[in-house]
Each structure stands twice: as structure tokens, then as C-alpha cells.
């Protein structure tokens, strides 16, 4: 059974002329991959920095695995890995030396083996002796991720990990993040590029103007934001299928070849019931896709603005 690993309670961060984060509470459970999404200036990076202890909070508390930032910062730091939205590397060190620096700082046991493991995990083994300044932006990003993974943290905070990467770099990073998810890491990842997060996060938290607009599993958010955009395809029984859909009270029903698109107001159970009805009535459903689970859709319907 999953338990809360990262708990943020009533977090508030004040900047000289603005409240950057205002009364933010969020719980991320073990194994969750939670996307922190919002427009530029919503307070995502400030939240990440406050959680990692780099930004002073006005109020509120942050706990990682029960250790509170204000009381036991060193214990918390051992359990938390933070990757900022840029690549802080020592240009004149090799990739191995860079990781060695942080392995010593974290007092990682069996240092050399762990460094090799992290280089392999981030596909940088071949670049182990290259100077950091010789690495591409994507490689530097992966090296910083390797550094973040060195102490095997329970929680990973990834702030705009794909910013500044070219398409190939993004694809590589996405693969890597999927791999991390497979390893069961708890991740809080921020981005304003929602396609980056789609299919990767099981939870999301939407921020706007320093406040948490909504949070929950993707399905819950889809439900909260209201109508789902659905598409269905079948091999037979056009009329029968359309009748069933009309009978279920779908809106904006449009046929498209052997299939249809429609909007559905009901919850996930009602949607499951609709699919069951179609199948039971003999409609051979070949595709059943809901864009209500899509982060972009959820974000747009949440009311938050300025998506980039």
C-alpha cells in the first residue's frame, strides 16, 4: 500500500513584491509520478526550490519520508534529489570527476560502482572521461540527472527537465524518465510543455498565480474538469452503436467513418458502463480513446492560462 513520501502543507513563499506560492498543500505518495503544471510564473520553480530548501518559506512545512525540512534538513537532503531547470556542472571536470564530487558529498557507499551505474543509467558511459564543457546540452542534462540519482533519493524533484533540449534530447529524456518510473521512483516533475508529461504522470497538480488550482490522479482531474472528449471506432452496426451513444446522453456526437467522436459528462464508472453496453449489444469496438485523460485537455479546462 502506498504512503505519503512528500507532504507539502500550507506552503507560502513571499518575494519582495509578490506572493510567489500561496497556501499550497500537496501530497505525493510512494511511486507516484506527479506533474506540476502551470503557466510561466505560476510558482512551479519556486515550489520546487522551497521543497528542496533552496528558497526560504514564509509559512508552511515540507516533509520527505517524515523528515521535516525545518527541523532535519540534512536527513531530508539525503532523501531528496533536485534537478534544476539548467545544468550546473563544473566545465573543467570530466563526467566521472563531476559525479565523484557529489558522490563524496553525499557519502555514497561503493562510490566507483555507483558512479558507473548512474553513467550507464543515463547512457553516458562512453562520455565518462569527457570534460563537461564538451558535452551537449542534452548530455549535460542527463549528467545532472545522474548526479541527482547518485544517492538513490526517495523523491526526485525535476524542474523543467526538458527545457532547452532539442527534439532528440527530449525523446531521450522522456525514455529516461519512463525508465525511472519503471524503477518505482517517486517523482515531482514540473513543466509547462504538457506533451512532455502526458503518458508519464499518474498524478498532476495544476498551479496558477502561486495557488494550487487542483490536484489528483489524471482520471480524477479529468472528471473534475468536466466533459471528456471521446473517440470510438467499430467494425459493424453503425446505427446500433449511434443509437446506444445517443441513448447514453452523449453530446456533440459526430460520426467519422466507422466510428464517432463525442463529449461525455459522466464519471469513469459511467464511461466504463457505456463501453460495456456497446460490447454487450454486439458492437465490435476496435478503438476506445478518451482525451479526458490528457493533461493538455485537463489543463485547458482547469482555467489556468498562458500555456506555452
Amino acid at each position, binding site marked *: 500500500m502506498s504512503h505519503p513520501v512528500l507532504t507539502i502543507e500550507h506552503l507560502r513563499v*513571499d518575494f*519582495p*513584491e*509578490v*506572493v*510567489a506560492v*500561496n497556501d499550497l498543500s500537496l501530497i505525493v505518495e510512494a511511486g507516484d509520478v506527479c506533474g506540476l503544471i502551470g*503557466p*510561466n*510564473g*505560476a*510558482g512551479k520553480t519556486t515550489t520546487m526550490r522551497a521543497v*528542496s*530548501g*533552496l528558497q*526560504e518559506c*514564509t*509559512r508552511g512545512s515540507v516533509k520527505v519520508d517524515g523528515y521535516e525540512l525545518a527541523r532535519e534538513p*540534512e536527513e531530508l*537532503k*539525503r532523501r*531528496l534529489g*533536485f534537478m*534544476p531547470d*539548467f545544468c*550546473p*556542472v*563544473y566545465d*573543467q*571536470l570530466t563526467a566521472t*570527476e563531476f559525479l*565523484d*564530487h*557529489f558522490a*563524496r*558529498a*553525499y*557519502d555514497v557507499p561503493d562510490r566507483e560502482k555507483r558512479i558507473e551505474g548512474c553513467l550507464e543509467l543515463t547512457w553516458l558511459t562512453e562520455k565518462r572521461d569527457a570534460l563537461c564543457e564538451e558535452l551537449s546540452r542534452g548530455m549535460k542534462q542527463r549528467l545532472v540527472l545522474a*548526479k541527482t540519482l547518485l544517492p538513490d533519493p526517495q523523491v526526485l524533484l525535476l524542474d523543467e527537465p526538458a527545457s532547452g533540449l532539442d527534439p532528440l534530447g527530449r525523446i531521450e529524456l522522456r525514455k529516461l524518465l519512463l525508465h525511472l518510473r519503471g524503477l518505482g521512483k517517486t517523482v515531482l516533475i514540473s513543466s509547462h510543455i504538457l506533451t512532455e508529461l502526458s503518458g508519464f504522470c499518474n498524478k498532476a497538480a495544476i498551479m*496558477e*498565480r*502561486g*495557488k494550487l488550482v487542483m490536484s489528483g490522479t489524471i482520471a480524477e482531474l479529468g472528471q473534475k474538469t468536466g466533459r471528456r472528449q471521446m473517440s470510438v471506432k467499430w467494425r459493424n452496426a453503425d446505427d446500433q452503436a449511434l443509437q446506444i451513444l445517443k441513448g447514453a446522453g452523449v453530446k456533440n456526437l459526430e460520426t467519422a467513418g466507422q466510428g464517432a467522436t463525442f463529449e461525455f459528462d459522466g464519471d469513469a464508472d459511467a464511461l466504463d458502463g457505456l463501453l460495456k453496453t456497446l460490447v454487450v449489444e454486439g458492437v465490435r469496438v476496435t478503438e476506445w480513446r478518451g482525451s479526458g485523460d490528457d493533461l493538455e485537455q485537463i489543463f485547458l479546462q482547469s482555467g489556468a*492560462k*498562458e500555456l506555452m
Partner: protein
Amino acid sequence: MNITENPIFLTQKRLTHRTGVLAAVLIAALIGLSLLSGLIAYLADPKALTFRSPQEAGKVFYGWVIGVEILVLILGGFSKISKVLADDRKAGLWDSNRLTPLKPAAIVAGYWLGSALREIYMGAVLAGIGLVIVVLAKLPVMLWLGTQILILSTTLFFGLLASLAGMAFQRPQSGIILLLPLFFLQTFSFAFPKFTIINFLLPIYGIVNLFQDPNQAANDYNDFRNWSDWPGIFALPVPPILLSLGLQFVMGLFLWRVTVRKTANPFQPLLLRWEAIAIFALLVVVQQGLIWGIWHGRFPTVFASDHKFYERESLLPIVHGGTILVGVLILALASPLPERVRVEALRTGLGNLRLVFSRSAVSLALALIAVAAAASLPHFIFSFGHSGKAWALAVGNLFVFFLMFSLLLEYCRLRFKRRALGFVALWLFVLCVLPFILAGVFSSQALAKLSFLAPGTVALAGSGSDDLKYLYLVGWTFIHFCVVVLLFVAWRRQWKLLLATPSPLAPAR
């Protein structure tokens, strides 16, 4: 953590060696060997150079060696450490290190001792060659040992100062701002080598003292120019090396605390209030102690007969001016940013002027005034009936000056925000410097007394007991006090406005 296992130290060492140390070490060696060869040439043929003895030649060549050493270690080391830290901050590496479980002290130690390794290698080479020069010239080894200890302690002291500069300033070259007051005060110190604290904080007196010939101590033309004697703290002789090491050690402890605290939490104010008071007390008490032996508590009666009139006339006003300068610097460093006080008010729910007063530099100014008054009182202790008025005026002057500065600084920060520094400078110019300029333009001494600096310095400069003069000075001090009251009213209003302002949310998108 052992420094040789400190990851930041090891990385800095790696980085230093990667960019090469051989050329730098060879340059140091060439400079040192050139000076050594000059000595050898003199020893081989004493007529070739115009020295009176091998010892004199040795002192000259060794003096050059330590001159270069000071340049490399202290100034080179300072700029290197502050640059490395500022660059690492800019690149996000300082934050990356802060995110590790490394203790803040280990992070500071790594940068402090590891960033300027190239300069340390160069210094070590020069020190080695210096030892050869001292031995060849048959100079006492204590000269080498004493000067090297002083250079080492000053290097460490300036290294900490550089660490602080690297943490506090965005641009590495801005760190030099921390050195400017030292160099500014240094210009006055050569007139009174034994009587100014700056000659001991920077160990100039200690180094020059070691070069003095004890047999020729009496050849200085008066006591004020004497570099041979031991200085006295309240007439108690103290070896200059010990005084320098002690001062640097205590000040270094404070600097260490500040840098470690700044690493643990960069959002905290630079100086805690008790630290600000302790640093000010240390500097002021030692400085007053150094000059106590001139009057032995009977100001203005001078005991040493060879003191020239203008020297004894100017010393106490200069110390008074120095006290104001140090106080202003400390007030500026300890003064909290208004926004921090507002955030604290939000955090504690105590958004009132009592909280403001307890955090503000104004209450700190009152403490500094008390310390300065107590430290200067011993000069008047046995002649209070005669010259207590001068002391009271000097204290009154400190009172209005420190309050004026702290109120002005916070008012400008509250009122003008990012443009505050310019307005503080403008008003300080108007209140302190402009009266002197107008006095020159209109040939009127009365105008000069309008300056906030004037009453204290004029009162302490006079050895007579001209009641009319004191009456005038009291009048000017009262006018200054009225300015302070006006500033207080404006300051109070601005704080109330700030605390009453509702917290703005992030801008609408």
C-alpha cells in the same frame, strides 16, 4: 570532515591543477631567485651595491620577497576566492553543493582553502626563497618566522572576507568594496603607526616592527612615528605580532560564523545583532585602548612631551570619525531589508512597530552609541569636570549621526526601494559634506558646523574649555537632533504603510 576528504576542496584542487600551476610557480620562483641572486651578488662583492651591511641588503631583498608574497597571497587570493564563489553561485553549483548533506562549515572550508591553491603554491615558493635570503644575510630567523606567520594569518583572514564577498555580491569584482574601507582608513594610519587599529588588523606594524633594528629604536624623530616599540592597550604593552594575530583571530571567528550562516541560509541578515555589537565593541575598545596612553585618562593633558601639538589635536577627532565610519558600515550590514521584516511579521502575526523596532538598525544604533560612549570615556575619567563637556558632545554627535543614518537608510529602502542607495548617498552628502563645501565657498566656519560630522570632531579637537564654543556646538547638535526627529516621523509612517499593505498575489496572466 578532514579537509583532504572535503569534496569541494578536492574539486577546487582538481580544477586548479587542470588549468596548470607550473607556470605560476615558475614565475614566483623566478622573481624570488632574482632577488636571491641580488643578495648573492652583494655578498660576493659588497662594493657592487650600496648597502651598509649584509643584514641591510638581506632586509631589502627579503622585504621585496614578502611584498610580492603579500600581493600574490592576500590580493590574488582574495580576488580568486571571491571570483570562484561568485561564479559557482551564478552557475548554480553553490546551490548544488548546498543541497548535499555537506555541513555548511565544510562547504565554506572547501572554497576558503581550496580556491586559491595556485596562489598558495606561489606563496610557498616565495616563502622558501625568503628563508634562504634570511639565512644567507644572517638575519634572525624570527624575522622570517614572524613575517610568514603574519602573512599566513592575513591570507586566511582575507580568504574569509573573500568568501563572504563571493557570497554577498553578484559580480566578483564587487568584492573589492569590502576592502575599500580598509584601504581608506590605512591612509590615515601611517601618521600614527602605533596608535591606529588598522595597522594591526592589517599586520603592517607587526611586519615593519620585525624589520626594525632594536639597537636603533631611539632614532625615530618622535613617538608618533615610532615603529619599534610595542603598542599599548590602555598602557599595557602588547607584542605587535600577538595583537595582530589576536585581532585577526577574533574578527576571523565572526567572519567564519557569518559565512557559515550565509551558506546554511542565504536569506538571513549578514550580521546578527549581538555579533554586530561585539565586532563594533572589539574595534572601538581596542582603538581607544591604543591611544589611551597619550592622555592616561586626563584628556586633553598630554603626558609624552615630544608629541606635536597638531598630532594630539587631531588624533581623537580622527578616531571619532573612524568610529562613525565603522558604525555606519556595521549598521548598513546589520540593517534588515524591509521586506524581510514584513515577511517575519506575516510569519509571526506580530505586524506592529515593536517588531520593527526590535529588528531595525535603529535599536542597534542605540546599542552602538552606548558601546562607543563607554569606550571613549576612559580618556576623560580623571579630567571629567574639565573636559566632560567634550565627551558629552562627542557622544551626542554619535547619537544623532547613528540614528540619522539608520533612519535614513531604512526610510529610503521603504520609500525608494531599488533606488534607495542613491538617495541615501544624496542625503548623506547633503547632511555631512555639503556644509563643508558651502563653508569653503562662503568662507564661513559656522556653515561647516551644520555638518552632522562637525560637533563631535570640533569638540574633541579643542584642548581649551571655551564655553561659548561648546554652547554653539550644543546648539548645532540640537538642530541635528530635530532633523533626526523629522526622519523618525517619516520612517514610522513608511513602516506603518508597509505593514498595512495587503500581501499582493502573483501578477495576473
